[in-house]
Each structure stands twice: as C-alpha cells, then as structure tokens.
C-alpha cells in the first residue's frame, strides 16, 4: 500500500460502512483492514460512529409489536428443527403424562407376586398423579415467572444503560463548562469585543485571546442566522493580513458555548465573515459581520 493515509482519506471506508461497495470491493477493503492496523481502526471507528448515529434515532415500537414479531420469528425459525426450550418443556410434559401407564404395569407385575390390596395401590397412584400435576403446574408457573423476570431484567438493564449514557453526557457537558470557566477566569486571556458591522449592526461576539499561549476562543452573543450552506469563519488580522482562525460550529454560532479556535501567533484585530461551509482560504470581506480591535 503506497499511502495508508490517502487510502483512508479517499472515503472508501465510509462507502464500505454504508454498504455502497460491490462484493469484490468489499473484499479488497477487508484485505486492507486485515493487513494495516490504521485502516482497521479507522474502519472500526467509522462503523461504530454510524452505529451510534443509528442508536440516537431509536424509536419506541408500536404496542404489541414485541409479541407479534417474536411469535412469528420464533415460529419461523423453529419450523425445521423443534428444539426450543419451550418445546422441550412441552415434550417433557407430554412424556410425563404418559409415564403412569408403564409404571402401573411394573407395579402390577410385582403386585401379582406379592398381591397387595388393589385399593391401596390406586390411592398411591392417585396421590402420585396429583403430586405430578401439582408439580407440573408449579413448573409452568415458575417458568412463566422466570421468563417475565428475565424480560423485566433486560428492560431494566436497558434503562440503566440509558441513564448511564445520559449521566455521561451530562458529565461531559459539566467538564466543558469547567473548561470554559477556566478560560474565562484566566487573566492571561484578553477579551476582544467584536461589534456588528453595517450589514448586521446588532451582532455581538467576543474573542478571548491568550497572547502567551496563542490560544483563541470565540464566544457568540448574537449573530444573524446563516443562509443554507454557509458557516461563520473567524479571522485574525495581523498587520493588516488576514489569518484563518477556523470556522464556528452551529452550536457556537447560536451562542451555545465558547469554542476553541486555531492558535494565532499575533493579531491586532479579529473579524468574522460568512463563508461556504468548511471555510475559505481568504475572507469574503463583503460578508464581514463583526469586527473588533485588541
């Protein structure tokens, strides 16, 4: 493989994960993944990410679907070889019901030798039958309770996983806020107020610039809504020359939180323009929305 990074960047792993490739192409990707750990890891990551995307769209199925689907599925898959646990139980019950007959013949054959009272024998047989019936009924009851319990357990495990996920997300959001707080309280950061230009007089944003570490954060107060396919891009002006400081995520642009931008070595002015999604190499000056000097 001439260049693993090029292979990864080509987008073929995404196509593989999305099921776009022919069987031969799939086999080729699998061969690459088998011999290059970077490709294998990247592919795994893409697949897990798409799985996560799917999971996020979880839908509560309509009422009664579980019973309908499971019954049909179990009936279809059980057809050729009857071996399900339930079936085995039914068989056991059927066998158990037939058992008294042979037992009786055995008893009779012994009985013919020792000749015990027939009345006593039938009392014992009745008692045994009653015991057996009670035992079977008990088993059936326990079996159904056990099934219910295991279903409830799975449901509870699902709930637990969901809570765990929610608390992880909350924890992460808390971590984000902590970090934001650290930046905001750090004296090394200088707040640069960016005011709206003629095109958007009410727009407001701040840049937090650390001249020592060159770190740049952006904090949006209010920006006009973006047209489709556009993104806000931050620029640092160093001696009049614009330097790309990165594009704002959708969340940042609506003021959800502060965003870490690209490091800037030196700047006197910061400004934001509206650029095609992904950002531009040079700013489109006519779309400058906010600007401010340090």
């Amino acid at each position: 493989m001439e260049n693993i990074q090029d292979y990864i960047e080509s987008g073929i792993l995404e196509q593989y994960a999305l099921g776009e490739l022919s069987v031969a192409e799939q086999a080729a990707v699998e061969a690459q993944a088998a011999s290059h750990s970077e490709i294998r890891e990247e592919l795994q990551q893409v697949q897990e990410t798409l799985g996560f995307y799917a999971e996020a769209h979880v839908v509560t199925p309509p009422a009664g679907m579980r019973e309908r689907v499971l019954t049909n599925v179990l009936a279809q898959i059980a057809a050729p070889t009857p071996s399900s646990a339930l079936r085995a139980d039914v068989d056991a019950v059927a066998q158990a019901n037939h058992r008294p007959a042979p037992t009786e013949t055995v008893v009779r054959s012994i009985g013919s030798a020792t000749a015990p009272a027939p009345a006593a024998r039938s009392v014992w047989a009745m008692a045994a039958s009653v015991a057996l019936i009670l035992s079977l009924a008990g088993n059936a009851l326990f079996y159904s309770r056990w099934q219910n319990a295991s279903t409830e357990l799975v449901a509870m495990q699902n709930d637990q996983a969901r809570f765990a996920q929610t608390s992880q997300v909350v924890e992460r959001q808390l971590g984000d806020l902590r970090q934001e707080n650290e930046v905001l309280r750090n004296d090394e950061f200088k707040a640069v107020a960016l005011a709206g230009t003629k095109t958007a007089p009410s727009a407001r944003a701040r840049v937090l610039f650390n001249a020592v570490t060159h770190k740049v954060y952006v904090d949006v107060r209010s920006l006009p809504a973006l047209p489709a396919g556009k993104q806000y891009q931050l620029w640092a002006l160093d001696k009049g020359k614009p330097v790309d400081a990165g594009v704002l995520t959708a969340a940042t642009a609506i003021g959800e939180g502060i965003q870490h931008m690209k490091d800037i070595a030196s700047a006197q002015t910061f400004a934001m323009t509206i650029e095609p999604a992904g950002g531009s190499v040079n700013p489109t000056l006519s779309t400058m929305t906010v600007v401010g000097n340090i």
Partner: protein
Amino acid sequence: MMPIRSHHLFSVTPVSDTSLISLPPAAEADLVRRLQARDESAMTMFYDRYSAALYGVIFRIVKAEEEAEDVLQEALVKIWNAFATYDPSKGRLFTWVLNICRNLSIDRIRSRQHRVGSRTQGLDDSLTAQRQAAPTAFRPEHIGLQEITQKLIPEQRRIIDLLYFEGFTQSEVAEELNIPLGTVKTRARTAIKVLSKLIR
C-alpha cells in the same frame, strides 16, 4: 499555525462508552455463542436488546409503521438463518445486524420506487416526495440526538441522512444536492469525524 480546521476542544473529553445498545463485550460474546449454538431462546434476548434501535433505523428508511415491523421480522429471521456468516473478528454484532436491517429496508424502498416510477426521472420524483414527508415526523427525546443536532451543521447532517437513511450512494448525493462528489466525500468524512468525537 495548526494544520487542520478548527475543532471543538470541549468535545474531546474522553467518554468510555456512550453506546447504549451495544452490549458489554463479554455479554455480546455470550449472546453470539448462544446464537451460534442455535439457541432459539437467545433470540428473545437479542430482540429485547436491539429491536428498538433496529426498528428506529428501519422506520427511518421505510417510513411506515406496518412495513417497518414487517422488515424487522424479515431481518430477524435472516439474522438467525445467516448467523453462521457472522464473523466477530470483522466487527461488532450490532454493526452486522444493523447492516442487514439497512440493506433489507433499502431494498424495500428501491423495489417500491420501481413499482411507482417508470424510469429515472419518475424514480427521483418519488424519492423527493418521500423524503420531504419524512425527516421531522418524530423526535425521540434522546440526549444523543440533541447533541448530534447541535454539533453537525445542517449540510453535514443532510448528507449523512441521505447516505444512511435514504440509501443514496455518494454519487447520488452529489447529484441530488448538486455539489461535486469530492465535496460529498469530504463532508461525509468530516461529519463522521464530528460524530465519532461524541462517542469517545
């Protein structure tokens, strides 16, 4: 200057496993063993664990409750019958079953389109009609989805949805959105990168 585009620093905090459907590896291995051993009762457990996620994906693609249920049932039987072909070394169980469900669902809508439209033009029309009816029809109150909506820009989300839920190929997306194929590839990759930061 840093080499690549800006990134959201605050999303990088590592999270062990936000996955709510995927079982812990040991439990998954156990379920796989039971299914390989043709233990039918394992299908009930499989159903309880995965059906909501699988149904969600199928429903997103076929966009009709009854048909989604039908596809889910077909998929479960297929998963059972084809289980010998599942190779755990190639990926997680959830990935494999998800692909089966997606493929069946996409086959379903493609065959429906063949019935509806005569040639490509008609086919495109029916696709557009379906797509407009669908996306915001329901909103599962799930924190993961809120995060996705916040982190992806609308264009990225649209591309992922077309690729994932509409069964479009990357070339079809390029044609549909009237943008170069290269842009589709870049945006899809970027979107997946953004999403992957949410889970690790």
